[in-house]
């Protein structure tokens, strides 16, 4: 598949979604370029997580378009209309996108290593040897080599989240989505996870991170985006975003966080 590198990896055009009567996404427009780290912040209920989950189709958006690597997500265009794609195609589209959850969601009935090799073997068809080799390399990278045979219940939150990141990376995604990755962690362990995410960012992975960690966003993001009431209110590089020239509303929001 040929993609021109200067095209954005992720393109969201006027994306809308409602849950029953409530409109959660009210026209989201966003672009994320290859290798870019984007942090999304905002009050709860602003639609940040929902938007993220629309990208890998854990939620279905009803209007607008989302493109990942030039491919329309969740729909196909036919005669000027958008028709939902089949389940099989949904599954294929998810393979290239990795997600890290707030609650880690490691498969508790498998060891850490088994968690990591599961999808590469079953979905990508890798051999046991290849998948295991990759897994050990990834565990080394996130600092969990010693815990390969441990079960998730025996790990701390930070260790579980690092294992979850390794699991997502094992699929060799071109886009990584982080849905409040440190919100469920206590301050001591938050640091170890943030450093893994930093390291990942420095390797050139395209990342979209929903987070409350302002300091981290300032440090690692290429661009920060504020979402409110289902729309993007403000986006800027971190220096501008957190500076004194920021709009009043943004400042007000930031002050509530700190």
């Amino acid at each position, binding site marked *: 598949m040929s993609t021109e590198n200067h095209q954005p990896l992720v393109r969201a055009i006027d994306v809308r979604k409602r849950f029953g009567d409530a409109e959660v996404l009210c026209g989201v427009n966003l672009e994320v370029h290859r290798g870019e780290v984007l942090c999304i912040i905002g009050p709860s209920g602003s639609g940040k997580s929902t938007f993220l989950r629309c990208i890998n189709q854990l939620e279905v958006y009803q209007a607008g378009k989302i493109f990942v690597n030039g491919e329309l997500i969740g729909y196909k265009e036919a005669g000027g209309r958008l028709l939902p794609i089949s389940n099989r195609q949904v*599954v294929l589209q998810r*393979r290239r*996108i*990795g997600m890290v*959850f707030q609650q880690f969601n490691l498969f*508790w009935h498998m060891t850490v290593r088994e968690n990591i090799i599961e*999808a590469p073997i079953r*979905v990508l068809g890798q051999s046991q040897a290849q998948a295991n080799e990759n897994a050990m390399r990834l565990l080394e990278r996130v600092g969990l080599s010693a815990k390969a045979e441990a079960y998730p219940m025996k790990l701390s939150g930070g260790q579980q989240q690092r294992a979850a990141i390794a699991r997502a990376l094992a699929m060799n995604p071109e886009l990584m989505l982080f849905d409040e990755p440190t919100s469920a962690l206590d301050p001591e362990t938050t640091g170890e996870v943030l450093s893994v995410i930093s390291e990942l960012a420095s390797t050139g992975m395209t990342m979209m991170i929903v987070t409350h960690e302002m300091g981290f966003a300032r440090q690692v993001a290429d661009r920060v985006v504020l979402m409110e009431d289902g729309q993007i209110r403000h986006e800027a590089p971190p220096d501008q975003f957190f500076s004194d020239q920021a709009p009043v509303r943004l400042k007000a929001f930031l002050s509530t966080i700190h």
Partner: protein
Amino acid sequence: MGFDWAFFFERIVNPGTPYIHALGRTVSMAILAMLLGLLIGLVVGFGRLSRYGLVRSACGFYVWLIRGIPVLVLLVMLFSGMAAAGLFRFTDFEFAGIKLTASFQAAVIGLAIHEGAYMAEIVRNGIQAVARGQIEAARSLGMSPWLVTWRIVIPQATRVVVPPFGNDFNHMLKTTSLASVIGVPEIFQLTEAMSATTFKTFELLSVVALNYLVLTAIWNTVQGVIETRLRAHEIDRPVRSWWQSFVVYMTPGMTSVERRA
């Protein structure tokens, strides 16, 4: 009248061939009824979660109906009631050289129907116990619905379902005694017959009670080993093999759960 110890021990050590056959019937009824009941439970349990309202209602009705009737009534209804009404009559059936009498078939099917209603609820609860996050994580990794079901939902649901299933089997071993009422020559019926001829009622009842105790004790150990193996994810010592499982199960205090923050 004192307790005839000699008679008691004689019956334990030397029960006689008819009694051994009866014991075989007790065990085989329990096993067959549980397997068939599990099958019914899976179908009805999944059915309760179906997206089709009609299927959900039908399965819900089955559970409500069967859980509202005593097992004994169900057994007699199947065996005598249906025949008396001209609806259906069980007949003896030979399968691979083994004779399955009408009453045996009715007993197994009746016990299975009863167990199925309870298994359905256990299965439904097991499926619903699988956290949504687990399924979302599996999906986000690009796993197909089939893979999600077989690699995540079923293994996790199984761990929730096995303990109550094991308890039901323990229960079933003893419930088979009700089959005596519809004429299955299992150990309780034989005990009653021997009581009438020998008048050693208390000794004989003690023997049969001991038989049930031994059967359930054996099963409890098997169940414990299986459960220990399935709880590998929360036990400190490794339980990768059945032998390890057995050792851990038998060691007092080892199966307590130690969780990290």
